[in-house]
């Protein structure tokens, strides 16, 4: 057992009031300094083009989905979060997804799907929040994943720059 001896307080310390004033002066200084506390969730988190949020499917201006259900994101996904079934369409590019599910609980936001996509159809969006009352509701289907390309433009531009890809959005005939 060790006996710790308390420090004897000096006279000024025993007076108590000067120490209160000293403490309040720290508070007063902090009030006028730049605030670093974020008022989340009232204030959303700041994002930029490097933010890797949840993956979303890009939809062109003419309401057609870019995805052709080639399955490369599905096979690239290290967490097996993606499941795709294809179907035929009358459009020029004959194939589109019939089912495109991302299990958001499995998704680890690694961005491999974005990297694998040959059609620039899937991008890591700036959406970060994920909460619901059941696991089933967090398996997002195609309707929940669709976003107009304008919403993903910043990330899309960044990815083009990053990969030094050619600028045209379509890489096939």
């Amino acid at each position, binding site marked *: 057992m060790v006996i710790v001896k308390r420090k004897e307080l000096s006279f000024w310390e025993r007076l108590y009031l000067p120490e209160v004033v000293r403490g309040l002066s720290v508070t007063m200084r902090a009030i006028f300094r730049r605030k670093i506390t974020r008022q989340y969730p009232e204030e959303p988190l700041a994002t930029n083009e490097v933010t890797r949020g949840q993956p979303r499917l890009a939809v062109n201006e003419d309401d057609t989905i870019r995805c052709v259900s080639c399955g490369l994101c599905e096979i690239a996904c290290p967490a097996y979060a993606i499941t795709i079934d294809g179907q035929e369409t009358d459009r020029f590019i004959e*194939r589109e997804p019939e089912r495109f599910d991302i299990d958001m609980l499995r998704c680890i936001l690694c961005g491999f799907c974005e990297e694998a996509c040959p059609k620039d159809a899937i991008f890591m969006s700036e959406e970060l929040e994920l909460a619901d009352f059941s696991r089933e509701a967090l398996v997002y289907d195609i309707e929940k994943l669709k976003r107009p390309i304008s919403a993903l433009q910043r990330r899309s531009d960044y990815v083009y720059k990053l990969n030094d890809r050619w600028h045209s959005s379509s890489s096939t005939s």
Partner: protein
Amino acid sequence: MTTIQINGKDVEVDPKQPLIHALHTNGCDVPMYCYHPGLSPVGSCRICQVEVQQGEGPSRVVVSCRTPVADGMRVFPDSEKAHDVRRECLEFLLKNHPLDCPICDKAGECDLQDYSFAEGQGEGRSVEPRRKLEKRKSLGDVIVLDEERCILCSRCVRFMEEVPKTPQLTVADLGARSVIATFMDRPLTGKYQGNLADVCPVGALTLSAFRFQARVWNLTKTTGTCGECSRGCSVTTEVLRGGELKRFRPRYNADVNTWWMCDVGRFAIEEHSLEGRLVGALVRGSRELEPADPFDAIDRAADVFTAPGHPVVIASPWLTVEEGERLRDLAEALGSEVHFLSPPANDLADDLLHTGDPCPNRRGLEGLGFSPIDAEAALELLSGATSALICGERIGALLGEGLGELPEKLRLVVLDTMPLDVPAVRAELGVPSSIERTGTWINVDGHAGKLGIARSAPPGVAPLVQTLDDLVARLSTTATAGGER
């Protein structure tokens, strides 16, 4: 045998086969598009070129599929010259080939894709636009042609001429305008069209039934045997994500089907559908059939069979030899004779593969001493009996509507893939379909075809072998218990 030198190593090769065969059998992976071991070589794609030196003369580059082997030939399939020539060929083949891989059904098993990945350039050098041709031209009910993807290897043309001997396809027009076509755009006919999608080295000819159904790398491939006729073609069973059967493809078997299979077997997908399958077991309650534990269902079946009299036993023609042996044991314990249902021969027989006999294991079951019986005779036999066992895949469907008219005094035990709701049924147990179990079928020529487990059976469905064993064990315990009493 002829002796040639491949990469400086002496090898013995078959003089009747072209050089490319010698290279492939000796571990040289020379690419090929127009050459197919089952078809006559034409040497139109030029991708199989290798460097060959004979005697003391300078070396030449030859197409290995059209070059016969000769004694003393020295072959350099991997020399720089050979690679350069092949790379140039590839560039021409890719000149007009669209960058369709993301939507192409062949992607993942495409020879052109594989070799382009291994050897091709990262970027094309040509500035001219690619050919624009028809991308979804229907060639009948089975095949869809994408003219842009075609590299004009003419395998499909030769297949139609040489294998089913019904020439219907041709290379129409000349030069850069060449396309694969049928006469006056007539649809293809015949029972072997499905093979066209297999022989096509690129994604030009695809099955309309498989179009955009799955990416091939997601399919689990298991070796199996086709059960649609007594030929028993060796097949690969391809299942998507452990559930849905997506396609059958022929598997090379020199003794049975070589490289081919007929469309009847290839498109027998519905027969293995998981929809409406009998899951677990059903037993007759006070009135209705109710879901039950499989063990209770076996008890109920044993109760049916311990009553006096010899039950009628009718087996499905899809029963394997192993299951047949267990059924024979059971029938011996019951003192019954086993019949197997043998539907009449259909009119699908041809002189290539299809035998017209829908029983894939006729020889195996007859070898076990089972006697063939047609549906009418089987129903007559059943209506005269007091208890019966009908057993095996699709047996209910084969016996047909007549089952509903069987008298209620007949106590029927059913082991089938599909539930059967007729008044005579007392107990019912699920069995696996032929892509969900192992076993052997003996084909029309006595060749043993192995079944493989491509996916697990529905929940609560035990292998038929196990169900029959349990039933025999249950019957023997009841017999001894009854003897002691």
